[in-house]
């Protein structure tokens, strides 16, 4: 029996056309561009200079604050330049350009495929390795993992949830990871479980991926025979519904607990980590391998070169597209991420980041915006909203700049999933407008909290 979250949600066409494509390793590009802003929080500070020789896996930037992460060179070669370069959205970001020479890895990194299931009991060592490995939440939010694994004092974690839902249409990289690297994900899960000191961990997978569920059950069954580290980890089948993989929705679905407005998952005793993050934790702790590559789904109905590829962080998108057969003629839009929450790419020369999960090609017919008409108060947006908000009302309030009413109606809880926009029969760009209002309200809340007398 699959479980799901209690309110809202939609079921867009799944379109997982690249699900049978094995993850293949893409050759390293001639040049990589490593941005220092690859995570939520303060950007990292470069610690290399122009002309320096770097090895694969060597740190090139150190954390710029408490919520920040290390960034490593994904290739070996020479630092060509450090300066502003246009990112996916066309905005300037401080970027380290490295010309590739061979592929020499930094000392201490285990590049073999051998599975290491035994890990240390010392949580401090583990967290330090995760921090030094630059592990961030690879589900998309890119929150530094070592910060998430240290719950604030007084908060007790009761359950670890590994998010393998991959509820966005088209995306298949987490699915392939679960199939091909299930053992590593399981060990990563066990490591995170031990660090958090919880007895129970759940790997949540949507029921449209029965192969992944079966594989993880088999893997966990085998591993549980070898070590007690793996007891308490179970696989849970989830209803295929968007946004099942949203952090708060997943907690609701698995634990039947609701995170309050403005609260954190830890408030209800949950910590959620993505499948790819669990894999990154395994590699950082067991193999000393930092986050220097990630698997990306390259797909689209008009793209014949469907693939799940493992690419080095900082690979230019144009290089990935060219090596998979070039830009399809019918495509008019490329999206980084899934069709629901991904962002259109303004600059194809931009490079991948740690959090890049997919490249999706859409045709003119798929991207067409239909004529906006009047709101008919049908309430479909309200039914679809997984956060229980009233998008039509927020839209109206945002247009009249009623900031107080927006805050009272919890615009700050919006997870920007796009269910309202998807379900609106009047084609009102609800999310576009709500997103702006949310940013405005969050800014005001932050300023207010900063001004509070202590």
């Amino acid at each position, binding site marked *: 029996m699959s479980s799901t979250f209690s309110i809202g949600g939609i079921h867009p066409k799944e379109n997982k056309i690249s699900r049978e494509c094995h993850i293949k390793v893409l050759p390293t590009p001639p040049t990589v561009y490593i941005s220092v802003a690859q995570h939520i929080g303060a950007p990292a500070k470069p610690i290399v200079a122009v002309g320096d020789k770097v090895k694969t896996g060597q740190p090139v930037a150190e954390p710029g604050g408490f919520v920040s992460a290390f960034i490593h060179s994904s290739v070996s070669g020479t630092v060509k330049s450090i300066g*502003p370069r246009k990112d996916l*959205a*066309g905005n300037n970001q401080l970027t380290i350009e490295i010309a590739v020479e061979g592929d020499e890895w930094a000392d201490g990194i285990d590049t073999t495929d051998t599975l290491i299931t035994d890990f240390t009991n010392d949580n401090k060592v583990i967290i330090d390795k995760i921090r030094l490995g630059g592990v961030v939440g690879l589900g998309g939010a890119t929150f530094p993992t070592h910060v998430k694994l240290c719950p604030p004092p007084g908060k007790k974690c009761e359950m670890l949830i590994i998010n393998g839902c991959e509820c966005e249409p088209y995306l298949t990289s987490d699915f392939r990871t679960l199939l091909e690297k299930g053992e590593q994900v399981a060990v990563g899960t066990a490591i995170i479980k031990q660090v958090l000191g919880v007895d129970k961990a759940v790997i949540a997978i949507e029921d449209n991926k029965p192969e992944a569920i079966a594989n993880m059950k088999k893997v966990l069954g085998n591993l549980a025979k070898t070590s007690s580290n793996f007891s308490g980890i179970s696989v849970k089948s989830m209803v295929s519904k968007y946004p099942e993989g949203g952090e708060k929705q997943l907690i609701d679905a698995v634990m039947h607990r609701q995170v309050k407005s403005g609260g954190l998952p830890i408030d209800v005793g949950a910590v959620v980590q993505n499948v790819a993050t669990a894999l990154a934790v395994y590699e950082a702790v067991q193999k000393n391998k930092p986050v220097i590559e990630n698997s990306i789904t390259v797909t689209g109905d008009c793209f014949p070169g469907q693939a799940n590829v493992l690419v080095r962080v900082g690979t230019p998108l144009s290089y990935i597209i060219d090596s998979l057969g070039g830009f399809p003629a019918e495509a008019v839009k490329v999206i980084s991420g899934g069709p629901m929450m991904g962002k259109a790419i*303004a600059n194809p020369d931009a490079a991948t980041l740690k959090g890049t999960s997919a490249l999706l090609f859409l045709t003119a017919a798929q*991207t067409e915006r239909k004529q906006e008409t009047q709101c008919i108060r049908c309430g479909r947006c309200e039914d679809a909203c997984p956060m229980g908000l009233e998008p039509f009302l927020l839209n109206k309030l945002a247009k009249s700049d009623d900031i107080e009413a927006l805050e009272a109606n919890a615009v700050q809880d919006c997870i920007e999933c796009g269910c309202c926009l998807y379900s609106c029969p009047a084609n009102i*760009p609800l999310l*576009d*407008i709500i997103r702006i209002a949310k940013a405005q309200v969050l800014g005001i809340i932050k300023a207010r909290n900063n001004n509070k007398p202590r």
Partner: protein
Amino acid sequence: MSTIIWTVVIITALGLILAAVLYLVAAKFKVEEDPRIDEVEAVMPGANCGGCGFAGCRAFAEAAVKAPNLDHNYCPVGGNPVMRKVAAILGYEAVEKAPMVAVVRCNGTCDNRPKINEYGGYESCKVKAALYSGDTGCSFGCLGCGDCVSACQFGAISMNPETGLPVVDESKCTACGACVKACPKSIIQLRNKGPKGLRVFVSCVNKDKGPVARKACKAACIGCGLCVKTCPHGAIELSDNLAYIDYEKCRLCRKCVAVCPTGAIHDVNFPKPATKEEPKA
């Protein structure tokens, strides 16, 4: 018959008693209001645009009456004539301010700044700016969705369909600053109108390095510093690859306009047979 008489008597008596009560209550709890507030409000333009920083003309009048002088209360829409009237009513000294006007600091016309991608989203500068850097190579310039046009209550800004840039009608602009707030790229600024409307300004906000800026837009300020060297009055400063002309020091000699290699410096309202360079803003 007697019923009607009694009714009339009782209702009349009741009316008189309640009127007396109301009168007494009104006299007892009377709110003293400065009569000058009404007088000041009467001379205000009545646009309620908020350009002064208050919620409307009434709020401005209340604040002006309370304030010890008019230094911090100025109605940009009414300008000096209105402020002289306000000062006369309140017995303060009138604060004279040079008239301001909204200036669009972008010359990224369709010719100067070719599009590199097509924007298919919601037509609003705010939304567009939140999504990405824009449909041209310049991540600083005008987005062209016209948020400033809809923000203007005086109909002083319109989009020029040929250039794709907003145009300020100086005769209608009141310098209320609504467009300045509406522009997510901070391209529009309030500047001194200048003597007889004559002024020279840098029509660009691109802070990229020269080659990058030039590649994105033919009319960009490339931060070459020629104008800084040429200016005989030391009025031009260069910071972040962008020139800035100090209004106080500028003597309107227009030597900078002549030397600017990209035509990023504009002169406005000068007589027609001016120097032989680019079209006006």
